[in-house]
């Protein structure tokens, strides 16, 4: 068992709001300089960029989870994590069909480009990714879980797009062991979840500005779950990086 300093909410240049500078190389290099052990990239409603970032992370000795940030029918932002690239890809393909067929307007929303490890643009996504899926919150959580992933509501205390703002409370019967918040503590509505911090970085300098240290045996979905539930000696705590970039 060891500590994994983890930033599990990072956008790449494929997200319309993510800077073009958010290439695989830039993200991983920022993670290395921030001394992170585990990262996940989580673009809006797609996992398309995760495999190239995973290869770059592996090259630099950083553990990686394939992530997405879903936007449900109720405008709730929901993070999803997969260990397996194929599972993430399959999930991403499945939800793409539930994304409204509205074109991105780059001047308004930003560019949506996928790049390779050399920072060469390989394709442009024309459908607006930052949009609500035709999929309700509970169904989204169920789909993620069924696909072997971990569902974590993003910035639950943010207005709008946070779970509490959009839905007022955690829907009955939904188990959310882990929840990300912007604030120092989870809102009372989410008191059954464990608190996770991440950067929600859209620029390289923001990577790792806030993160979570997981005391786990391996960087897997199952281990994150155990840490969230404080099972078998696993644990977690949140950390805000100091200005110098060192953990405080």
């Amino acid at each position, binding site marked *: 068992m060891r500590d994994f300093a983890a930033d599990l909410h990072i956008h790449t240049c494929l997200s319309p709001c993510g800077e073009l500078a958010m290439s695989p190389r830039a993200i991983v290099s920022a993670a290395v300089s921030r001394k992170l052990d585990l990262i996940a990239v989580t673009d809006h409603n797609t996992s398309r960029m995760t495999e190239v970032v995973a290869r770059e992370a592996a090259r630099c000795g950083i553990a990686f989870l394939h992530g997405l940030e879903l936007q449900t*029918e109720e405008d709730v932002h929901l993070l999803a994590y997969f260990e397996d690239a194929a599972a993430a890809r399959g999930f991403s393909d499945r939800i793409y069909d539930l994304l409204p067929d509205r074109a991105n307007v780059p001047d308004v929303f930003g560019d949506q480009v996928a790049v390779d490890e050399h920072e060469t643009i390989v394709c442009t996504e024309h459908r607006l990714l930052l949009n609500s899926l035709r999929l309700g*919150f509970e169904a989204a959580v169920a789909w993620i879980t069924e696909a072997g992933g971990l569902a974590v509501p993003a910035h639950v205390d943010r207005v709008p797009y946070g779970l*509490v703002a*959009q*839905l007022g409370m955690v829907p009955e019967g939904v188990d959310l062991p882990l929840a990300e918040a912007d604030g120092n503590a989870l809102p009372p509505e989410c008191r059954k979840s464990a608190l996770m911090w991440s950067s929600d970085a859209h620029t390289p300098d923001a990577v790792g500005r806030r993160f979570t240290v997981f005391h786990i045996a391996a960087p897997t979905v199952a281990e994150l779950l155990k840490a969230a539930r404080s099972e078998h000696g696993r644990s977690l705590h949140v950390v805000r990086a100091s200005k110098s970039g060192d953990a405080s």
Partner: protein
Amino acid sequence: MTLQELATALEWDVQCVGADLDVAVLGGYCGDLLSHALATAKPGEVWITIQHHANIVAVAQVTGLAGIALAGGVRATDAVVERAREAGVPIFSSADSAFILAAKIHHALRSEAR
């Protein structure tokens, strides 16, 4: 004006039967952010929304809203209707947009007040 009178006048589809429609409508509340509804909707108001998540029932119950008017042809699922029935929260569905629906409700309440 009671909820029943309003529903009849505006030709709403009553999705949740069995709830008490004989309550006075005191005004309206518009919005789809449930946290905002929880914080600001007042007892006796009709809630105009396109939000059809099951949590609307709890929000209406807690705030004492007279009922929920789903706009734009949005309909509650059977599961939500069942929950509303248990909670005694009336749910209606209207083909009108939220904008038109709000105008019609406002007009109906004002006409009665004159």
